[in-house]
């Protein structure tokens, strides 16, 4: 019986493909695109001011409110700035670290280092951010305690704290793709560049950086989009500062359509970012 089904399937490539893709296809269309579509549609709904019920329909009022209120514009630019800073800081730390892991460390230490980079991901997000909260605490935190003799003080809770916290959280997502990219880069290319007279920094600029650019883009998509949508970090160590996620979270229970409207901002920014990246051709070699 089994055998005959296998034989029957063997001759029908399309049926086989359909059977294989049914589950992931269903997931993608219903659970993922469906939810995203529902969110986008909701952005055009309104609410009844008296009962708070959602009224379906097509109305651009939410978008008008969002664009005309400078408070939301500020939150948007602030969030964008934070996401960009986190991405830049993560790349600046991840490139030398990944280079050390892939090209300098002995092969038997490499796997150990990868495991070390992954360990923070085993701990809960909340635990890590609360840990940062206690470290950043002005006056009593570890940072003030350690660095105040040097004249350096904790930035306290606010924008810089959010940037530090998010950079810490997303760093592994930047290191791993760059590490993978560097591992694929043959050592002979580095030798060849030195052999042709180039010093290490020249080799880095002209050979290493262009060849790991796709990995850098892959990493930045994580750090950038994860920062763009974050709200918990801002809530715990952001002081009074709000990010887009916080605005969505606050409106979620009182004005769902408006929350959905705000949520279209990070989606639009990510779409623009992907489009820009696509134009550089980095996705083709990913």
């Amino acid at each position, binding site marked *: 019986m089994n055998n005959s089904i296998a034989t029957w399937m063997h001759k029908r490539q399309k049926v086989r493909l359909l059977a294989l893709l049914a589950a992931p296809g269903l997931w993608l269309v219903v659970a993922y695109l469906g939810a995203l579509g529902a969110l986008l549609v909701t952005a055009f709904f309104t609410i009844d001011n008296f009962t708070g019920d959602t009224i379906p329909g097509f109305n651009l009022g939410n978008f008008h409110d969002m664009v005309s209120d400078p408070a939301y514009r500020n939150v948007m630019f602030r969030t964008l700035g934070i996401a960009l800073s986190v991405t830049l800081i993560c790349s600046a730390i991840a490139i030398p670290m990944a280079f050390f892991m892939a090209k300098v460390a002995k092969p038997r230490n490499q796997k150990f280092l990868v495991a070390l980079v992954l360990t923070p991901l085993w701990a809960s997000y909340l635990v890590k951010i609360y840990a940062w909260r206690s470290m950043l605490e002005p006056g009593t935190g570890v940072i003030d305690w350690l660095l105040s003799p040097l004249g350096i003080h904790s930035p306290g809770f606010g924008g810089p704290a959010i940037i530090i916290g998010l950079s810490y959280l997303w760093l592994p997502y930047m290191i791993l793709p760059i590490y993978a990219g560097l591992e694929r880069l043959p050592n002979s290319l580095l030798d060849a560049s030195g*052999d042709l*007279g180039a010093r290490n920094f020249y080799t880095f600029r002209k050979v290493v950086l262009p060849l790991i650019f796709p990995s850098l883009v892959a990493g930045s998509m994580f750090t950038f989009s994860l920062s763009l949508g974050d709200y918990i970090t801002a809530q715990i160590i952001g002081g009074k500062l709000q990010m887009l996620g916080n605005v969505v979270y606050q409106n979620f229970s009182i004005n769902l359509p408006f929350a959905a409207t705000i949520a279209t901002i990070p989606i639009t920014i990510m779409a623009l970012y992907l489009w820009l990246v696509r134009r550089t051709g980095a996705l083709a070699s990913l």
Partner: protein
Amino acid sequence: MLESGDVTVSIRNLTKSFGKVQAVNGVDLDIYSGEFLTLLGPSGSGKTTVLRMIAGFEKPDSGSIYLGGEDVSQLPPYERDVNTVFQDYALFPHMDVLSNIEYGLRVQGIEKTERKVRSEKALDQVRLTGYGDRKPAQLSGGQRQRVALARALVNRPSVLLLDEPLGALDLKLREQMQLELKELQREVGITFVFVTHDQEEALTMSDRIAVFDQGRIEQLGTPREIYENPKSAFVSEFVGQTNKITIEGKKINIRPEFVSISSSATLGDKSLEGVLRDAIFVGATTRYLVGLENGEALISIKPTEPLSVGDSVVVSWESKREFLV
């Protein structure tokens, strides 16, 4: 040319180990200006490590490397006047052919027009005129090989190092490239240091060969010296084929191509009788395997004779072709 030439590279008592493995174990070598020197040996014999130490990719544990009289053994690769052709070619995949060739000149800060002229000329030299704007991925193995060669030669180094550059090519192309490389070397007059494990390649191309075994040079000499007068059992076995037989209690060595085979006639002053055990036709010649009366076997490689397996045969050779190791 060889004895009187200037010494370009001088290596003294060079050693290098990787962990517990002694890769290079006391190598002394003088390389003359303008010669084609081959480092020949099986894998793991230390030939590539010596080459990488001349280039500066590895630092020696002890010993010195002099380049044009200056001790360069502790200098980084970018401060040495040598260039390398890598086994995997190591072309920069994100640059086109011309940018690859120009790379060294660009680093040196040579201005644009001269850079262009010299790179185009190097491209002509390796017969790739018009390929400048291709990417390495669009080239065949042989073409990549030529680009790697042009990229190194355009800098006019005092020594060109070649690390098994023909290893990845198929036989026909390899034979063609051997001749071209040799011709190119005569044309540019640069010292070539060539690493290979292929003894035939070494014999074809080199002015001199250094045969490596276990981190040491076993023998250094011209291809004829190495082939006709191997100094050790290792060299005689690694370079060419050798019959080892015992005659009247004396062990002698004789190359198969010097052994004549016939049903009765002898050619030369030494002869033995035996039985033809096998005959393998390989085109221009046939390999005959002869069982001798004392139980030993002998191989003869000669133009095909009208003999069949099981025949009684006579093998003979000139005693001056024998050698002892």
